[in-house]
């Protein structure tokens, strides 16, 4: 929960309240003493009821009883069944449920309750059912099942409802028993009593939720007949909408089954039903504007309702419509929503604003921002965060409006607010600076002003880091120095240290500023914090040196591109000697053991995992491609290959827990492919030398090996990389299969000292095959607006064909398979297929090697025999790419 206040003190025994409360000074021990009256031979029903009320008050105040206390009270209460007083009996039913006796105690009341369950008085029956079902376990349930089934169809609606509601609860714990009641429940659905129908419908749906046909029949019959209570009608709408989602649209008429029913419900006399129907329509898959219009019209009317709940429900639904990608449909309601910005109810106002921010056009931004400014001051932080996030997306949508929006963000940044709110604003400004180049300078100035008076160390350090990176690249870098140096004077040690680093970056990048920065850094030498002094000393020393070691200086400020675990291992094995420690010799690859450990529980996630693990292994702030590029550029032979196009996720070439662990990454260039083999020796008693991977490209005709790099030495548990590079025809997506063998020289070593014990011998180890497929030549790059991009591509280069995919379990499986083969990015969430759908369209985007945009529309259909057919439409910037995509599918 966001709004956490100190808990109100319950039952506050304030002076002025004391005379009011009949429970004043109530104390658990005393009430338990009083409960002894339950054992009196001559029961005083009135007094007993009073004691039960006190017990209920204690329970409702969050008081708990120990097991002994609960048992004692429970046993005492069971005595009260002797009383014939109805008021007391009703209290007894309630208190038994509240005490919830343990299963071995329940037996004491079972016979009394069973007696009541067969009573001629309906209400005894109803209550006994509720209590018994509430406290009993499965074994006893079997004994009373017969009575419960009868009760479901009892002519008294109270008894029937009691059994049905109990059934809903019992379905969780004893589904088998409740499922046997389905005939009776089905009968109860036809009941004339409105609430019985409501309960029966809910239970029947839960019993049959996995039987699509039954649900479809139920919906068909009820939508034709009459449903009495609005509550049941709402359930029916919900179930209908589920049936619609699972059934296909009539392709000839374009009609959606049951749409007429939903539309009819929009004219129902109860608001609850109208809203349910409107929501169901707005949530239909691929809803058309013709279908949406009546629902939106109804919702629009409710926007000006006098009842806050209806305004809230309307604006909430419209907000969802927009979120689901139909902002235009809501545009007519914009004027009504603008008036809601001043709504007293802040939930409504926030929903209205966030909806408007998504639907508004560029011309309305200024007006909207003016209204929001007045509104921001009197809403809670959690609402403000929502608004800030909406403004961020608006700014990305209309970059020309960055000035207004950036000013707004900076003005709210100056106001009071908690950490989450301030962080949301700062994050938004950071994103805008990154995405909108024009916004950079003004954004940096706003952030500078903010850190002058920022109480959050985390945000200050984050901003100082950014200033160090971006400040020197601006037109007037010197103006930032004052802001940064102020932090050195006024802040805590963490912020001071960040500020020192930021200053040093200015000094390093801009020669003109260096002398002045050195003066400032000199002053930091007397700081009372170790870290600040250390940083200042280091930077003074390096900045003071001549330009010959510029590269070294620059590297000071770069993120470490080695996994810390590897660096630690290398440092530990380094012996101080004449030879200085060489950072470039530290392995850049994550240890396969770590991979294997993480991989063990994640078998299900399959392919995605490799890339994720690889990303996790990379240093903070470095993306996988950057790190690979750096690694590959360290090998001079690869420098002529040009720009790296794509690196695959690691492919394991050995089983887990074998003596040598090897995985491979495929790096694709325009005319070359490099295999990077990450090898780890997992035997402490061995040192491997001259480790290479011999790749047989017999099954890959278009590939010619041009270079191979081995690993000189592979000690225990320190990963190393071997490389093999191939030339291939440029721009062609050559495919092939490669057989791999690991070759090396084994030396026995003493694990304690690491010294070699013998001369060693040559050995080899068979690895799994590696394949290069078409998907390796396609980059997963999404597009923000598929339709626009599709339209923008030349229809001449469109290629359409149909394919049979054979028998598949469901469409989701077929979609997944095709997406994996193509290795493209699914857009707009179209990789997810509605459960049990008969047809589906997926939109994929990618960049083909040579930076060629390619888009794919896949239309799937599945028939009753589970045969899947697919229509594949491709558009690309180059016709040969469109053809290539078809070839990939045809040959898959």
């Amino acid at each position, binding site marked *: *929960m*966001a*709004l*956490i*206040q*100190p*808990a*109100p*003190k*319950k*039952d*506050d025994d304030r002076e002025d309240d004391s005379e*009011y*409360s*009949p*429970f004043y000074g109530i104390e658990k021990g005393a009430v338990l003493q009083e409960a002894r009256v339950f054992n009196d031979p001559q029961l005083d029903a009135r007094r007993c009821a*009073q004691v*039960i*009320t006190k017990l*209920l*008050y204690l329970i*409702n105040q*969050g008081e708990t009883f120990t097991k002994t206390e609960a048992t004692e009270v429970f046993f005492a209460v069971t005595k009260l069944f002797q009383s014939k007083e*109805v*008021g007391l*009996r*009703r*209290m007894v039913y*309630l208190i038994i*449920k509240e005490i919830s006796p343990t299963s071995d105690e329940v037996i004491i009341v079972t016979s009394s309750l069973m007696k009541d369950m067969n009573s001629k*008085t*309906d*209400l005894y029956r*109803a*209550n006994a059912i*509720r209590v018994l079902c509430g406290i009993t376990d499965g074994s006893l349930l079997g004994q009373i099942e017969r009575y419960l089934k009868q009760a479901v169809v009892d002519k008294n*609606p*109270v008894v029937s*409802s*009691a059994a049905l*509601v109990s059934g*809903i609860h019992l379905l969780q714990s004893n589904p088998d028993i409740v499922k046997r009641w389905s005939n009776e429940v089905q009968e109860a659905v036809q009941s004339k009593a409105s*609430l019985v129908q409501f*309960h029966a419908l809910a239970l029947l749906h839960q019993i049959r939720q996995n039987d699509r046909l039954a649900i479809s029949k139920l919906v068909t019959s009820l939508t034709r007949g009459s449903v009495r209570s609005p*509550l049941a009608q*709402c*359930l029916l709408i*919900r179930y209908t909408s589920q049936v619609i989602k699972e059934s296909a649209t009539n392709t000839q008429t374009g009609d959606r089954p049951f749409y007429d029913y939903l539309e009819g419900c929009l004219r129902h006399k109860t*608001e*609850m039903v109208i*809203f*349910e129907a409107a929501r169901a329509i707005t949530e239909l898959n691929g809803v058309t504007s013709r279908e949406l219009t009546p629902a939106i019209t109804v919702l629009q009317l409710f926007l000006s309702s006098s009842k*806050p*709940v209806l305004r*809230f*429900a309307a604006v*909430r639904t419209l907000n969802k419509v927009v979120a689901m990608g139909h902002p235009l449909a809501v545009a007519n309601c914009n004027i009504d929503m603008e008036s809601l910005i001043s709504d007293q*109810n802040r*939930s*409504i106002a926030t929903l209205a604003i966030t909806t408007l921010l998504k639907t508004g056009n560029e011309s309305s931004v200024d007006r909207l921002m003016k209204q929001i400014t007045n509104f921001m001051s009197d809403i809670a932080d959690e609402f403000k965060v929502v608004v800030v996030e909406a403004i961020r997306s608006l700014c990305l949508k209309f970059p020309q409006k960055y000035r207004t929006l950036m000013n707004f963000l900076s003005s709210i940044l100056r106001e009071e607010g908690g950490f989450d709110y301030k962080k949301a604003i700062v994050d938004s400004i950071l994103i805008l600076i990154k995405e909108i180049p024009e916004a950079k300078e003004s954004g940096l100035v706003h952030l500078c002003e903010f850190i002058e008076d920022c109480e959050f160390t985390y945000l200050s350090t984050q901003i100082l880091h950014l200033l160090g990176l971006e400040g020197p690249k601006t037109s007037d870098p010197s103006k930032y120095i004052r802001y940064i140096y102020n932090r050195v004077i006024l802040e805590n040690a963490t912020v001071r240290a960040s500020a020192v680093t930021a200053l040093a970056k200015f000094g390093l990048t801009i020669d003109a500023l260096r002398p002045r920065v050195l003066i400032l850094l000199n002053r930091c030498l007397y700081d009372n914090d170790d870290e600040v002094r250390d940083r200042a000393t280091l930077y003074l020393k390096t900045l003071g040196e001549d330009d010959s070691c510029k590269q070294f200086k620059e590297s000071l400020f770069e993120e470490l591109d080695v996994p810390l675990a590897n660096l630690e291992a290398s440092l530990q094995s380094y012996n101080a000697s004449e030879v200085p420690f060489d950072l470039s010799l530290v392995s850049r690859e994550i240890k396969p053991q770590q991979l294997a450990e993480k991989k063990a529980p994640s078998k299900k996630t399959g392919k995605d995992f490799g890339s994720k693990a690889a990303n996790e292994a990379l240093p903070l702030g470095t993306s996988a491609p950057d790190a690979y590029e750096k690694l590959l550029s360290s090998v001079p032979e690869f420098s002529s290959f040009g720009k790296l196009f794509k690196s695959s996720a690691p492919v394991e070439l050995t089983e887990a827990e074998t003596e040598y662990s090897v995985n491979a990454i495929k790096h694709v260039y325009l005319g070359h492919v490099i295999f990077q083999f990450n090898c780890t020796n997992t035997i402490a008693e061995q040192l491997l030398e001259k480790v290479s991977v011999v790749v047989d490209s017999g099954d890959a005709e278009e590939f010619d090996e041009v270079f191979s790099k081995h690993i000189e030495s592979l000690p225990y548990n320190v990963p190393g990389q071997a490389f093999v590079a191939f030339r291939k025809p440029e721009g062609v997506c050559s495919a092939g299969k490669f057989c791999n063998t690991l070759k090396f020289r084994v030396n026995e070593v003493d694990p304690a000292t690491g010294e070699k014990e013998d001369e060693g011998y040559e050995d080899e180890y068979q690895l799994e095959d590696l394949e290069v497929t078409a998907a390796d030549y396609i980059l997963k790059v999404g597009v923000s607006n598929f339709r626009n991009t599709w339209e923008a591509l030349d229809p001449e280069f469109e290629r359409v064909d149909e394919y049979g995919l054979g028998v598949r379990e469901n469409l989701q499986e077929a979609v997944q398979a095709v997406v994996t083969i193509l290795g493209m990015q699914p857009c707009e969430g179209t990789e997810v297929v509605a459960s049990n759908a008969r047809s589906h369209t997926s939109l994929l985007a990618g960049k083909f090697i040579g930076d060629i945009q390619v888009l794919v529309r896949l239309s799937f259909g599945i028939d009753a025999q589970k045969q899947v057919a697919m229509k594949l439409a491709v558009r690309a910037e180059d016709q040969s790419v469109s053809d290539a995509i078809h070839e990939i599918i045809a040959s898959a």
Partner: protein
Amino acid sequence: MLMSVLFANSSGNVLLERFHSVPGEERLHWRSFLVKLGTDNLNGARDDELFVASHKSVYIVYTVIGDIWVFTVGKDEYDELTLVEVLHAITSSVKDICKKAPSERVFLDKYGKVCLGLDEIFSQGILEHTDKDRVRRLTRLRPLVE
């Protein structure tokens, strides 16, 4: 699921609370959250005036009757509109039991009856009865009028 029904006095002291499927440690947060909503909005509100709020996917509909604040919290099918039904069932029954919009004293005097009424209106988070006359009869174990 109807997650919670909570009664508090106008000083924000909880008088009666029911939680369903809400773990003990979260109840404290809910209490504070609801009482804060009441403090912010219910002072000066008319009897039976409905207020609505949401927190993530949970809805809250609340009102004041006499000196008593009443909150209902729900999620999924118990959205704001269904909660209006639940709240109406509760407030009409409480007024019926107390004979009027209750003062705190009257509410506490009728505490037992109010508990029985709530027990008829909802059972473990599911709405069971809504009509106040029926609820009154059921709490007295009197047969329904045909």
